[in-house]
């Protein structure tokens, strides 16, 4: 919403400066977006006298002008290309150093074809006053030389633009803004009263509202009157200037009057050329297949949800949104029908959205205009038409009726203190409400307040508190320390999952991984590759096709990000994300997953080539190490953890595994990405990843105290025995380790694999696995015989469980 300071002063008697006005607007909730100080912008431009204009010695089209700036300095030499530059004329001069908005340049002293030029005589285009760049501004003979041009031309009026929140339809008219400012103490409200214009005879065009009872709200009231014998043409300069200042294009007087009242009073109107209207008007639902060519020159297909104004020719106007081209007013209009109506805000919003029309009328009607000003708006428009275009008005006709919006709200003054902490005298609060147009009845601690007709947003006492608070000023509300609920040390507040999420991020970062935050939505094809693609998780209105489906996994986003980094010359990247994935559109379908992805040589130990070693590419064990490190950091006991070969379909089947405590307690997976997936994602490997669903991790067992288990230390030295087994290639090393450990649970404390060999020495389809078994005696030193016995048991157990033979 834009307005100028002088326009505001039509409604507000005030000496306030534009800065005062802007500060006050901000303070009372009408947020200032911009203040355009035109006087400052145009300050260097002065009215000047062209003392002489002579032919340039070296250029046919240029003239050398001597310009008297009226400031007591000798005439300034200016080279000018305008065809209308002539001796004796009055024009607008800008000295060197001036910024020229129409050209986006700052003038300098220059030499043009050998003649020095120390400024510029300006066209209206150069000042952005019009599109006219045919010649320099030609001012009347009596224009005061030396005076600022902007003040002379009336273009120095500061323009203020405010952002109006959706609840404040009343501030979409300058009169409403003035009322708020007056209530805030910035001046006295002086909006001229509207007086009824007597009509001569009934309006010859009637209006009917073709709605059944339940649709009646679509157009509660429609007022209309005819003015005959008008002369339409360009509107007066003051009116054009105001409209231009707020960014509107003057059309003709009749149209300009409707726009003027739209902004002056927040009351949109429409004018029909009466001679182009056939028969009477009917306000009705649009019919399927109906179209209308609107005033914006575009044709709109209508449907029955929309409300139109029609005559015998068909649709003439889209009610409350935009008039039709056919019955629009132009210079030939002699008889005009003026419409002032009420429309349903919801329906206007829906129609406007469907048709994609943004108009000043829609903007106001969808927020709700003052119903009580429907008829006065028509009177005001009639008066302006008579004043500016002449003619004779008929009486007004009103279809429907003006809704009665009066309501009384019980308002305990104490509510202001309860909700804001502000302690104000009752009289102050009452005065504020009354200044805003509220009626206050009663004298006790609880009064009855009737909101004015223009404040449909006021529903209850909290709204009244806001009115009092915003006019008092939020800066006057004292800040009050917020007490703790208990006078105690702050208690921990994070849930287990929140703690694990935080810890997961720090742990993975400490492993050299860099945290990424990638989009929650990915492309459909990618979603399908990673177990997603459920149509319920596909956005109806995605912003781009590659951001269409809620992600089922974090891997695709990270894989593509890794590739992008590689394309930028960073092939060895280690990324992680701890974030949400979606299995369904229900809250339970959303889980938190920790996922890390390594590419190239980005291993935890180090990245890239190094002087003392090779640049080893990442493999499945890097992903496994990340996953296991995270489980350990999160305090998940890994004793019962099963590492089941093979993972979800996006992993290499022979180089991946599922992490689980059982088939129904799957935690996640790790592995090398499947070559087919790499191809489909158009990314290059090697890429390894792990995924762990943090929601799926078991909670720690509740313990009564924080005591750690008792430490039992043995007085006897542990000893280690090595065994090399030959087994079938398919046997999992973990089976051997497990069986060895099971041979004597009391003595065996650790089993490690220190060598794996496949090759001619062990035969086709076989492999050798060498393990080191640590034995920890607890009550005495083992004898050789006892050690032999345990060793034999280990060999026997491993052989029994895995078919292994001790390597000879």
């Amino acid at each position, binding site marked *: 919403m834009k307005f100028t300071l002088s326009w505001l002063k039509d409604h507000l008697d005030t000496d306030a400066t534009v800065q005062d006005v802007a500060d006050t607007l901000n303070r009372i*909730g009408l947020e200032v977006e911009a203040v355009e100080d035109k006087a400052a912008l145009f300050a260097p431009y002065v009215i000047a006298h062209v003392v002489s204009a002579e032919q340039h010695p070296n250029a046919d089209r240029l003239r050398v002008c001597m310009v008297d700036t009226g400031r007591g300095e000798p005439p300034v030499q200016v080279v000018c290309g305008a065809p209308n530059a002539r001796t004796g004329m009055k024009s607008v001069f800008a000295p060197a150093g001036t910024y020229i908005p129409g050209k986006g340049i700052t003038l300098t002293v220059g030499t043009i074809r050998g003649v020095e030029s120390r400024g510029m005589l300006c066209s209206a285009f150069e000042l952005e006053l019009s599109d006219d760049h045919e010649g320099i501004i030609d001012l009347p003979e009596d224009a005061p030389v030396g005076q600022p041009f902007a003040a002379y031309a009336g273009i120095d009026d500061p323009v203020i633009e405010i952002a109006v929140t959706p609840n404040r339809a009343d501030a979409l008219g300058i009169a409403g803004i003035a009322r708020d400012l007056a209530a805030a103490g910035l001046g006295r409200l002086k909006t001229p009263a509207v007086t009824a214009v007597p009509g001569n005879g009934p309006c010859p065009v009637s209006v009917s509202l073709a709605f059944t009872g339940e649709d009646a709200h679509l157009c509660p009231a429609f007022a209309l009157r005819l003015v005959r014998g008008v002369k339409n043409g360009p509107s007066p300069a003051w009116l054009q200037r105001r409209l231009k200042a707020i960014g509107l294009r003057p059309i003709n007087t009749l149209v300009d009057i409707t726009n003027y009242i739209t902004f002056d009073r927040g009351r949109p109107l429409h004018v029909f050329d009466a001679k182009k209207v056939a028969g009477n008007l009917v306000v009705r639902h649009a019919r399927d297949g109906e179209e209308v060519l609107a005033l914006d020159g575009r044709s709109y297909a209508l449907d029955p949800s929309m409300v139109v104004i029609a005559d015998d020719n068909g649709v003439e106007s889209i009610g409350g949104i935009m008039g039709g081209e056919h019955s629009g007013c132009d210079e030939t209009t002699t008889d005009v029908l003026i419409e002032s109506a009420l429309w349903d805000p*919801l329906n206007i*919003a*829906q129609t406007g*959205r469907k048709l994609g029309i943004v108009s000043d009328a829609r903007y106001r009607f969808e927020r709700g205009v003052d119903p009580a000003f429907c008829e006065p708006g028509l009177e005001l428009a009639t008066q302006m038409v008579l004043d500016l275009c002449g003619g004779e008005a008929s009486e007004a006709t009103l279809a429907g009726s003006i809704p009665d919006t009066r309501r009384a709200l019980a308002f305990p003054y104490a509510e202001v203190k309860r*909700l*804001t*902490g*502000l302690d104000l005298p009752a009289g102050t609060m009452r005065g504020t409400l009354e200044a805003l147009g509220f009626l206050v009845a009663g004298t006790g601690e609880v009064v009855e307040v009737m909101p004015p007709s223009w404040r449909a947003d006021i529903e209850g006492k*909290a709204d009244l508190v*806001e009115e009092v*608070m915003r006019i008092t000023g*939020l800066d006057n*509300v004292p*800040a*009050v320390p*917020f007490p703790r*609920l*208990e006078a105690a040390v*702050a208690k*921990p*507040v*994070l*849930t287990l999952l*929140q703690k694990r999420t*935080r810890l997961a*991020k*720090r742990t*993975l*970062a*400490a*492993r*050299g*991984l*860099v*945290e*990424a*935050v990638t*989009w*929650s939505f990915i492309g459909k094809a990618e979603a399908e590759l990673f177990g997603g693609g459920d149509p*319920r*998780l596909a*956005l*109806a209105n*995605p912003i781009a096709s590659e951001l269409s489906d*809620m992600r089922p996994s974090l891997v695709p986003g*990270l894989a593509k990000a890794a590739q*992008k*980094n590689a394309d930028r010359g*960073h092939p060895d990247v280690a990324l992680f994300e701890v974030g*949400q994935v*979606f299995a369904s*559109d229900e*809250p339970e*379908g*959303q889980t938190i997953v920790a996922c890390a992805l390594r590419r190239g040589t980005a291993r935890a130990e*180090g*990245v890239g080539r190094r*002087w*003392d070693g090779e640049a080893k590419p990442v493999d499945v064990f890097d992903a496994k190490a990340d996953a296991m490190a995270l489980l350990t950091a999160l305090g998940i006991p890994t004793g019962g953890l099963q590492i089941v070969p093979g993972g979800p379909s996006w992993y290499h089947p022979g180089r991946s595994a599922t992490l689980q405590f059982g088939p129904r307690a799957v935690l996640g997976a790790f592995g090398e990405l499947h070559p087919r997936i790499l191809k489909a994602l158009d990314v290059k490997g090697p890429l390894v990843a792990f995924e762990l669903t943090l929601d799926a991790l078991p909670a720690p067992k509740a313990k009564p105290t924080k005591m750690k288990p008792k430490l039992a230390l043995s007085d006897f030295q542990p000893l280690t025995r090595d065994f090399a087994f030959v087994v079938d290639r398919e046997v999992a090393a973990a089976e051997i380790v497990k069986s060895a450990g099971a041979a004597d649970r009391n003595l065996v404390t650790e089993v490690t694999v220190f060598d794996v060999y496949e090759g001619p020495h062990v035969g086709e389809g076989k492999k050798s696995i060498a393990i080191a078994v640590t034995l920890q005696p607890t009550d005495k030193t083992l004898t050789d015989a006892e050690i032999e016995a345990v060793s034999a048991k280990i060999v026997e157990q491993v052989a029994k469980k895995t078919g292994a033979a001790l390597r000879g």
Partner: protein
Amino acid sequence: MTDIPTLERTLIGAVAAAADEAALEAVRVSALGKKGSVSELLKTLGAMTPDERREKGPLINGLRDRVNAAIAERKAALEETALAARLAAERVDVTLPLQEGPQTRGRIHPISQVIDELTAIFADMGFSIAEGPDIETDFYNFTALNFPAGHPARDMHDTFFLPPDDKGERKVLRTHTSPVQIRTMLGQKPPIRVIIPGRTYRCDSDQTHTPMFHQVEGLVIDKSSHIGHLKWILEEFCKAFFEVDQVKMRFRPSFFPFTEPSAEVDIQCARKGGEIRFGEGEDWLEILGCGMVHPNVLRNCGLDPDEYQGFAWGMGIDRIAMLKYGMPDLRPFFEADVRWLSHYGFRPLDLPTLAGGLSS
């Protein structure tokens, strides 16, 4: 009888001439071994008369001691030389560079860091962290928050929709974290003190908007908290978060469907050469919206607005991260460019605490 001084000269000369420990050992054996020349002399002492012994004893023993000492001295010198040679041989180029270790390379994203900072501040004030789903129903995202159907305020949200279900109802990607206010109020009894950080979505994408962004919401519900408390919390938060002693804030009345009265809050700052400094300057920067929870919202959650009251506020996590740490643009937050992440990210153990300071 061997001439003792001659023998001594010979032996001392041999010791000095021993080039290594083996040669020195040979000299020692030749002199002090079982059959060594000095040992032989010592053996003669037994057969001497006491007078002879009194005369010869000191001479022979003196010889033995001096030879011993010479050998020890020579041995130390040889060991010293050998050690020096070994050290010279073992020398490495310690200027060879290391590979960067994992804790040097790893980074925490600024959004995670800022959430940890927010958590540290608000946990101290007794706020817990509430969370909710990204995919919301129309009820939680709009209706319960007092957005009337078709209201222009809904339009302002640029909502992402999911396909309609059997009943024609469309779920949405939450356009703000406020639906979690509703879930919290429906799920627990006052007093309520929560902050709600999370991902939010709007179908809007340009220089300063991304279709996904992060908000943090605060909610307090009890029987006495008012705008004055809200102002205090926000001022204290801004000082703690931006780590400055003073902030100046400007509260402007505004409108949100779910609060009444409502306000927007600007923070005073100075912009100097691409830097923003708080607590000084002439510029105002909008950082959050807030207000008293609307009576309709309280009613929608089964709370009597005449008995319960409270306030809520919301702000952009990405935005306050940009303000504090100086990222000029929003879009790179979500592009996973390691150059950006390494530069603007935080080290793994940069844990924000109130005791140690939020940032180092």
